[in-house]
């Protein structure tokens, strides 16, 4: 065994062994906790996808093979099937929330980077929505988006008449979720972009100014390319965050009206905690995980094409 391993790869030198040992001592406190609390349950839930279990005694677990997946994809479509509907809703939500959040946070960061006066105060203000507790904020937005709430009354002033409570309307409910999400995300990712902007060397702008570049040219040719590592990080975090959306929906609409705002994770929650179909819940969870993984991998593979590291 030892010989075979040694033959495969070069033996570790004494120093290397010592280094590895020290490295693992750094990792240990986090790794042990993380393995027990997160990795083991993750593996357990993957196994659950192939089992049939309603949460009763362990000996009631039976092997289901691919039944859970077959059940889910039986009569799969985007209008009637629960998985299809929640998948469609989540993708729709992500498709608008990710770009809108990036646009808003980048705009805020650029404006703040330029503003000398009271920049600190503005930073605090824009970041505050992210800090504020979800339940408080969501219930407040719920009230604000009611039929006679301030948002509809303000919109009426500019000639847009919305005579419904947003969260109770099939057409508007998902937009309520998107608005609250973008409003919350903007300040958070603004901080990431501000950090990124600080890393852009001032010499580049000075050189461009000497060369007579316009502000737009500087933005296109210096700021955006230099910010690509930040944008890469932000877009990955945002996409993952969007697919994990749950709290806002649960507090504001509980997936309704009907299934208009029901997201993948709400469906998982429903399957596991109200219907006690752990196997099926895990099957959906795995589908969700694979989607998120695929998105991330695609972003990583195209990373080299558009991300510039200094």
């Amino acid at each position, binding site marked *: 065994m030892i010989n075979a391993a040694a033959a495969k790869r070069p033996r570790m030198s004494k120093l290397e062994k010592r*280094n590895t040992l020290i490295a693992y001592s750094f*990792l240990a406190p*986090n790794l042990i906790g993380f393995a027990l609390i997160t990795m083991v349950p993750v593996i357990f*839930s993957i196994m659950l996808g192939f089992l049939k279990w309603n949460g009763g005694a362990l000996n009631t677990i039976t092997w289901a093979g691919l039944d859970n997946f077959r059940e889910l994809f039986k009569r799969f479509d985007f209008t009637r099937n629960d998985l299809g509907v929640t998948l469609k809703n989540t993708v729709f939500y992500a498709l608008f929330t990710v770009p809108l959040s990036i646009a808003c946070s980048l705009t805020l960061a650029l404006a703040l980077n330029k503003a000398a006066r009271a920049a600190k105060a503005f930073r605090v203000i824009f970041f505050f929505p992210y800090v504020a507790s979800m339940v408080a904020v969501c219930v407040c937005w719920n*009230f604000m988006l009611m039929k006679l709430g301030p948002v509809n009354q303000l919109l009426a002033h500019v000639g847009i008449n919305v005579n419904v409570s947003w969260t109770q309307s099939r057409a508007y409910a998902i937009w309520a979720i998107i608005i609250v999400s973008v409003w919350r995300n903007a300040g958070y990712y603004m*901080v990431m972009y501000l950090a990124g902007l600080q890393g852009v060397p001032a010499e580049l702008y000075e050189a461009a100014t000497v060369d007579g570049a316009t502000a737009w040219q500087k933005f296109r040719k210096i700021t955006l390319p230099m910010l690509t590592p930040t944008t890469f990080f932000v877009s990955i975090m945002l996409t993952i965050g969007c697919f994990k959306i749950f709290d806002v929906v649960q507090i504001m609409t509980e997936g309704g009206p009907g299934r208009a705002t029901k997201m993948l994770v709400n469906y998982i929650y429903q399957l596991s905690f109200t219907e006690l179909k752990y196997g099926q819940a895990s099957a959906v969870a795995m589908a969700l995980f694979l989607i998120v993984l695929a998105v991330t991998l695609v972003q990583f593979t195209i990373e080299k094409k558009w991300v510039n590291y200094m």
Partner: protein
Amino acid sequence: MQSILPDNASKIKHTKKAAPLKIIGSIILHAALIALSIVALLPFFWMISSSLKLDNEVFRYPMRWLPTVYHWENYRVIWTRVTLGTYFRNTAIVAVTVTFMQILTSSFAAYAFAKMRFRGRDTLFLAYVATIAVPWQVYMVPQFIMMRKAGLYDTLWALIVLQSFSAFGVFLMRQFYLGIPNDLNEAARIDGLSEYGIWARIILPLAAPAVATLCIFTFVTTWNDYMGPLIYLTKDENKTIQVGLRRFIQQYTSDYHLIMAASLVSLVPVGAVFLFLQRYFIEGIATTGIKG
């Protein structure tokens, strides 16, 4: 390519022209920032205003931005309806412990990932990053079963154990550490400092802004956690503020003014911590940033 003289001349002309434009630009910029601030703060303003109204005054047509009579007693009434004080204490215990644990374990583990070479590093890091992508809801059921077996159900320990070891913290700290030049490590190693010494004396102090960032993010996340307490805590004396507030909302559905008052009160501690820490937070980001 061009002679120095005309180039200089055009530069002077350019700056002269730009001066008034710059002032106008600055005014527009600040006006836009103020407008955006109003959008960001509107819900909080409305929350405060509604919390001082009577319930039938909250939704009125045409609306009033300010109460006609200020009902400060709303803030007294909410404390008598539910045990807000207990909720606050529980949340503080969990949030402070989790923040401390996360910073300690994350900054420690990130050092190995960013500054050391060892077998299995990249595989292990990939496993970490991959689990960030796994929504907690995916594995919350097996996790719940394990925690119940460990006898942690309906205790604050469940929430502490649940959130103390995050992959995100390690990821964030590693990204910061990567921006710190490796020359520092090399020099310190030559000077005979152990890896633990380098972590404690060089890397961690340099990463103070990252620690502040992680600190505020963790504290906020833990304070705002809703699903965790919802699943794990049943006894009222164990509840945290988020589920406590939710209970309040469900119990007094149409007392809009009281709901807004309780919501506002639930924001105060996290808002205060944020205002207190944001200085370090923003200064830290200004000096190092994500890439260092």
